[in-house]
């Protein structure tokens, strides 16, 4: 392995206390406390979940290719939409960001490793168990969760399949994992920075992750509390969400979205960070408006706590409430606009080149903005009564999550892959992957705007005939996007296998501490703190 040179220099002094290379065999992965190993495991886990959730999405799209029921039963269809959402949110996007944080944060701030390595190992290894429990429910009597990823009570309590208890414990475990990951990130960033790395010099990926970690600590316990209330309603005869016992089902929605809205920013803030690293590299300019980016990110995080009820305009909240949540939601467009402006201003008059990470990042800026605009449309309370629970909502959040979060993760992977593996990936294959994905997702999700505005409800296995053409187009796009991800796997695997030695800086315009390390970097990133000017 790459660590041999370091091992030789280190053996003389540290032989007896620590060994500086990875352990042999499988135990390396089970017992590792190394941030790179754990980051790698997070990323592979996330990829596996992305493929699993993707297969579920393809089952949904296959059923929706034509009106009528073709392939799967409505109840199984509901399980597929539910599990697709849960797995993509908690299994694919969030672990991928934690994986990137594990790999990059110590290298970016000049630390040898994460602050709490054992906790790090634990927070990863909880996840495979959590998702095994979750996926297991599909094979139980009555099937898996079929109440939508938002699991509104009483659908998820009184009328839930018996397997809902497993779902609740799986959510508890994911929550514990995320909270431990977040604690680790905060402690690392606040306590382990190299001398001279003041807060306002932190790379934006680190900044956005710091804010994300605080969001996680603030809202994941709320989610844990919420599923605990469900558990008590189901098994201990409490009535948090049951009107018969003096509870209120609408309360469920308030608590869920009090968690849920910050959660959507948890899934996009690290993406902002990644894109803010990549665009300056390939525009060969400094990031425009660094400090405004930091303040914009913080404002978005703050605003995310006071807009939750825009998800529930139609439950019957009073007019003043509708107005407050409508305007507070629209306010988020301001800091988001600042960010988009800064990215465009960074590219403006830069000497741009269009390697794969840059292509994904530019697609991110453009398509995320489209998702943002449809979000603004949904924020208009009177109009939302028309859009609520239609495919327009589905189009909106897939535009911010797929070409938003997922594209940024892919951009980040292509950007740092040569650093991680020491090999360049195949640029031509990367570009083919990008273009197929780009075309695929637009064919999939753009027509959903139209069927949504025309009134097609979401979460239905069958639909009225007038929506048939657009749904067929969507399904074709989904299969194109889904299968082009096999190229992504091929690209990553061949990059790991094929020797094509990457330089330390990897990219001509790269900047930051991680590029001062060798490619691949030593097992422990910075054993002596680097000097930061």
């Amino acid at each position, binding site marked *: 392995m790459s660590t041999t040179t370091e091992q030789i220099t280190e053996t003389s002094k540290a032989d007896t206390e620590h060994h500086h290379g990875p352990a042999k065999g499988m135990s390396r992965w089970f017992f590792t406390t190394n941030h790179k190993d754990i980051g790698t495991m997070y990323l592979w886990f996330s990829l596996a979940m992305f493929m699993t959730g993707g297969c579920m999405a393809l089952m949904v799209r296959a059923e929706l290719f034509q009106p009528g029921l073709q392939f799967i039963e409505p109840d199984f269809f509901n399980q597929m939409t539910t599990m697709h959402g849960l797995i993509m949110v908690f299994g694919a996007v969030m672990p991928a960001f934690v994986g990137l944080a594990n790999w990059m944060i110590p290298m970016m701030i000049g630390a040898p490793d994460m*602050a709490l390595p054992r906790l790090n190992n634990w927070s990863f290894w909880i996840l495979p168990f959590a998702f095994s429990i979750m996926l297991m429910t599909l094979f139980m009597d009555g099937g898996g969760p079929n109440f939508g990823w938002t699991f509104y009570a009483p659908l998820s309590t009184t009328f839930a399949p018996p397997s809902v208890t497993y779902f609740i414990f799986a959510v508890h475990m994911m929550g514990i994992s995320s909270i431990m990951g977040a604690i680790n990130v905060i402690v690392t960033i606040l306590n382990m920075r190299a001398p001279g790395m003041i807060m306002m010099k932190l790379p934006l990926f680190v900044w956005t992750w710091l804010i994300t970690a605080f969001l996680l600590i603030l809202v994941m*316990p709320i989610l844990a509390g919420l599923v605990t209330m469900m558990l008590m309603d189901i098994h201990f005869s409490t009535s*948090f969400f049951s009107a*018969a*016992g*003096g509870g209120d089902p609408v309360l469920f929605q308030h608590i869920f979205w009090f968690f849920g809205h910050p959660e959507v920013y948890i899934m996009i803030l690290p993406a902002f960070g990644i894109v803010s690293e990549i665009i300056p590299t390939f525009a060969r300019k400094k990031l425009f408006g660094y400090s405004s980016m930091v303040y914009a990110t913080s404002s978005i995080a703050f605003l995310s706590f006071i807009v939750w009820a825009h998800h529930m305009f139609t439950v019957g909240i009073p007019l003043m409430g509708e107005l407050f949540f409508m305007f507070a939601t629209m306010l988020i467009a301001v800091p988001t606009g600042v960010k988009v402006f800064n990215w465009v201003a960074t590219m403006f008059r830069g000497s741009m080149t269009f390697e794969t990470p840059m292509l994904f990042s530019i697609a991110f800026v453009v398509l995320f903005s489209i998702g943002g605009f449809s979000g603004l449309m949904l924020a208009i309370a009177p109009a939302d009564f028309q859009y609520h629970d239609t495919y327009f909502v589905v189009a909106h959040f897939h535009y911010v999550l797929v070409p938003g979060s997922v594209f940024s993760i892919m951009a980040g992977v292509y950007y740092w892959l040569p650093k991680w593996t020491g090999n360049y990936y195949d640029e031509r294959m990367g570009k083919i992957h990008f273009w197929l994905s780009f075309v695929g997702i637009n064919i999939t999700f753009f027509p959903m705007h139209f069927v949504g505005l025309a009134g097609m409800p979401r979460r239905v296995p069958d639909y009225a005939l007038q929506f048939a053409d657009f749904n067929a187009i969507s399904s074709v796009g989904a299969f194109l996007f889904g299968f082009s991800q096999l190229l992504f796997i091929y690209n990553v695997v061949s990059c790991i296998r094929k020797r094509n030695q990457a330089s330390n800086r990897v990219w001509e315009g790269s900047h930051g501490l991680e590029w001062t390390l060798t490619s691949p970097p030593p097992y422990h990133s910075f054993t002596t703190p680097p000097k930061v000017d």
Partner: protein
Amino acid sequence: MSQTANHKKLVTQLLIGTVAMFGFGFALVPLYDVFCDITGINGKVDLTPGKYLATTASQREIKIQFIAVNNETMPWAFKPTQGSMQIKLGKTYQSSYLAKNLTDKYMVAQAVPSVSPFEAAEYLQKVDCFCFNRQPLEAGEQREMGLTFNVLAGMPAHIKTITLSYTLFDITAASSAALANNQ
């Protein structure tokens, strides 16, 4: 090492934050009730039987409508004996609802009231109501369930009609569990 001490301090603070937020999640339940109470939204009605308030009679007449709703899967027949009444503010009236257990099993029901418009909720006083108690019915049994109420004279003038709706819930399972615990 001071770094370990630093880590410990920060981790402790973050863990306290986590536990506090877990508690805050539960605190949202009463907070939500308090918020609805203060702002008067959500049309929730006080379920405790209130003391009889001496009310000033008024000549103002309004209409009160009675609605009966069966919660999903509740198999009883449930309806008001009269669909609506013309009433004078400040005067006490009586009405009733009819319930019949159509199944061949003993069942227990609980009625949950709701008032609309929500501004009227605080002026509608229930002196006695079948919703204060559980309603057990044997198989096939029928019962007329009483309701005594008045509407306070101070109610805003723009309200001309009040709708009082009861939703009937099946609580047989919960109440037999409670009985078993008592014995």
